[in-house]
């Protein structure tokens, strides 16, 4: 933690970055995001197991971008997100620097290739708990699955907190906000909720980097990560591609490769 604060102080003092985005203690035992813009403020930074939020989401906000170059305290999923955003032409390499706190100090990654190397070496698999949840879900029959989600979605409030939390929901105009025509109905009724949630999941297929922030953000506790992870594992098995592994990558769902197996088409 001290190493992190030290690093932040140094980066700001030398004007290497204009802001360090990290964590500070929040309410209810959770951590919140902290934007450190003065070296003197660096002492407020913390890093522990409560620091879960994927701070890469802030990189997409215009008001954050306007602050200048950012150093971002990054968890494993944060790094994957940075690479995915880069692959989608949303990040300039020079605009950021990732700070990875570890047992022996803080690693500072300033290039995409450094981040790629770090990501390739880290464990990107689901946790054992996540895996068993996913297996339980995958084992359900189709009818059972539909019932499960219908029940879950019936509680959705259409507050769009999941979307606000998701670093990959960076569109300045979301499909739900298109009203000419209004493909996805606005009210939080069953059909509208189903359409919204299916659309959200499909738009993340082959893109979601499994940070889990959508589920944590949902005020009514819908396990959204299950949908995303199922799609991720399907994309991995069908196209042999994991999102967030490279800063230059073709989108698995929109790219035709002559050596694609295409077994489901032929």
């Amino acid at each position, binding site marked *: 933690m001290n190493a992190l604060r030290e690093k932040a102080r140094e980066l700001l003092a030398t004007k290497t970055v204009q802001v360090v985005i990290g964590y500070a203690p929040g309410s209810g035992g959770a951590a919140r995001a902290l934007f450190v813009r003065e070296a003197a403020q660096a002492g407020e930074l913390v890093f522990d197991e409560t620091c879960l939020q994927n701070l890469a989401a802030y990189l997409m906000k215009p008001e954050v971008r306007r602050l200048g170059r950012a150093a971002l305290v990054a968890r494993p999923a944060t790094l994957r997100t940075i690479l995915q955003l880069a692959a*989608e*032409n*949303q990040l300039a390499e020079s605009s950021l620097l990732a700070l990875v706190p570890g047992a022996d100090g803080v690693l500072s990654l300033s290039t995409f290739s450094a981040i790629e190397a770090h990501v390739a070496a880290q464990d990107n698999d689901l946790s054992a708990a996540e895996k068993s949840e996913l297996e339980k879900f995958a084992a359900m029959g189709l009818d059972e699955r539909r019932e499960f989600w219908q029940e879950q979605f019936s509680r959705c409030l259409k507050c769009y907190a999941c979307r606000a939390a998701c670093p990959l929901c*960076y*569109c*300045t*105009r*979301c*499909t739900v906000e*298109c009203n*000419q*025509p*209004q*493909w996805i109905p606005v009210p939080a009724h069953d059909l509208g909720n189903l359409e919204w949630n299916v659309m959200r999941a499909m*738009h993340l297929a082959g893109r979601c980097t499994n940070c889990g922030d959508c589920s944590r953000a949902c005020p009514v506790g819908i396990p959204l990560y299950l949908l995303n992870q199922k799609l991720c594992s399907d994309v991995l098995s069908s196209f042999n591609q994991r999102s967030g592994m490279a800063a230059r990558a*073709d*989108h698995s*769902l*929109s*790219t*035709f490769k*002559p050596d694609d197996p295409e077994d489901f088409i032929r």
Partner: protein
Amino acid sequence: MARIGVFICHCGENISATVDVKQVAAAAARIPGVAHSVEYKYMCSDPGQQLVKDAIREKGLTGVVVAACSPRMHEPTFRRACAETGLNPFLCEMANIREHCSWVHEKGDATTEKAIDIVRTLVAKVKKNKALQPIQVPVTKVALVIGGGIAGIQASLDIANAGHRVILVEREPSIGGHMSQLSETFPTLDCSQCILTPRMVEVAQHPNITLYSYAELESLDGFIGNFKARIRRKARSLDETLCTGCGLCTQKCPTRKIPGEFDAGLGLRPAIYVPFPQAVPNKPVIDREHCTYYRTGKCRLCEKICPTQAIRFDQLDEIVEVEVGAVVVATGFDIKHGDFFPEYGYGKYPDVIDGLQFERLASASGPTLGEIRRPSDGKVPETVVFVACAGSRDPAKGIEYCSKICCMYTAKHAMLYRHKVHGGKPYVFYMDIRAGGKMYEEFVRRAMEEDGVQYVRGRISRVFERDGKLVVKGADTLLGARPMEIEADLVVLATAAVAQPGAEELAQKLHVSYDAHRFFSEAHPKLRPVETNTAGIFLAGACQAPKDIPESVAQASGAAAKVAALFSRSELVREPLIAVVDRQPPPVYSSCVGCFLCQSACPYQAIEKEEIRGRDGQLIKTVARVNPGLCQGCGTCVAFCRTKSIDIQGFSHEQVHAEVLALLNRGERDA
């Protein structure tokens, strides 16, 4: 306020026999916004079109729905009629109540209901239609012909004679293709070289034709009228401008024991070679794989001998970039080789050969100078068994189709054998004789009746060696499947005609489709046999399906006519049914977020990056843009865009949404 006219066609009885057209007209009249609704027996007839035109003028219609057949059939007809009255043609839509309704359902209320629903949908759509203007694209009047067999040669000459420039790309050192390997040709038995060579020379000398032999297509980008091709000219190891084709090098080359491709492996050639004496261009190439210098670093004899110092050992492949407006693909076919027929001993016994090898044996320029001598010991064979359908029409071997040329060339082979070996005994094993074609049946009859070729209907099961003879085991199915055994000196397999080995790769470079057997697909099996599904790319010859020479030539001339028609105007008019990416006034500029997922999704490489800059030149954002010349309006990008920033003109989100709602809300609306 919309004033829509609905015109319901009986299509004779095609529609009215199952759909109650009067009821449809009455229902259409009740749809809000419909100002006029009539039915008529033949809407596409002159009086039918007049009904449409009169109504547009008299009732001031703002949109037209013709409920009739498929838009593929008559959309152009009715759009033209609308345009004649001054109504923008893209304000006219077809409601397909024939293919989508009357033809596929029984007569009844439900069928009429469905027809009404279809009309309702299109009325909802047409209310949202916008006037569109056709797109004009310039045409580069240069054609690229890929493949210099007889088909490619014919297409090149026809296009060149129509006054347009042609770039002909041939993979091998010489043009000519398979026809140059043939001895004599059915059904007239004229010498193949004698009729082909003059055309090859004409290609070489034609002022409008640029020939790149020993070259291959590297890539093709662009679209009809505006393609960019990159051609790889493989290193001949020779300065073509200096070489006079004297042939001294090929005579002196010490590396001479290489099985020659032109003689189908039956003759030998040196490492520096011209494939055959009449080759065009008549310039050698060094086969670097076999050349002693490239293998050991020593020799360079040809370099010393060449009187014009034309040899270039260090030559590299060269990439040439050309702009062309149309492409004719004429890359031909191949025949099955190798261990495909273990039961026939093909590839195992030297005297089991394929049809092309027999052509070389029978050819005056071949390795035996036209005498039929078998490869193993040079003996003149006393008995020859010809096997038709070797691999063809054999689902077990994965080739269900008929290779089409084998029946005819097998009859030719048996005949040539009899003409050259008077006492010889030719047998032909066949499944059926397919001799459809002018003078073809007569030709086969001649083989049987005048030349005494023994035709046996049946498949052979096995060929094996016994005491220096090839034993052919089969059955005569016309004689109650009586087993037969023939002791032959030579067996000739008419192996299946198959696609070129590189066909799939080439198709992917060209973005044209191909069938399960890797033959290129025509756009329509009957009505568009020389077009591909990619506009501006045409097919000629055996690359599309096995064909004989007359058919290949006919198709080549057909393709050339299409190219000439395309080149007859300097601008091409295209329907504006293409994608556009949202643009808005500042500060938004576009709802596109520049993720460019659409870019990789587009199968036609139509999506580009556009930088939006402020007055001071500062980059504001990078967003997608659709190149109107390239876009085919397939809609793939639309489905991908999360921000719904892309619309297909004529099939916009609003239009499609209106159609869906018209169906969903039908109960409420009519109530």
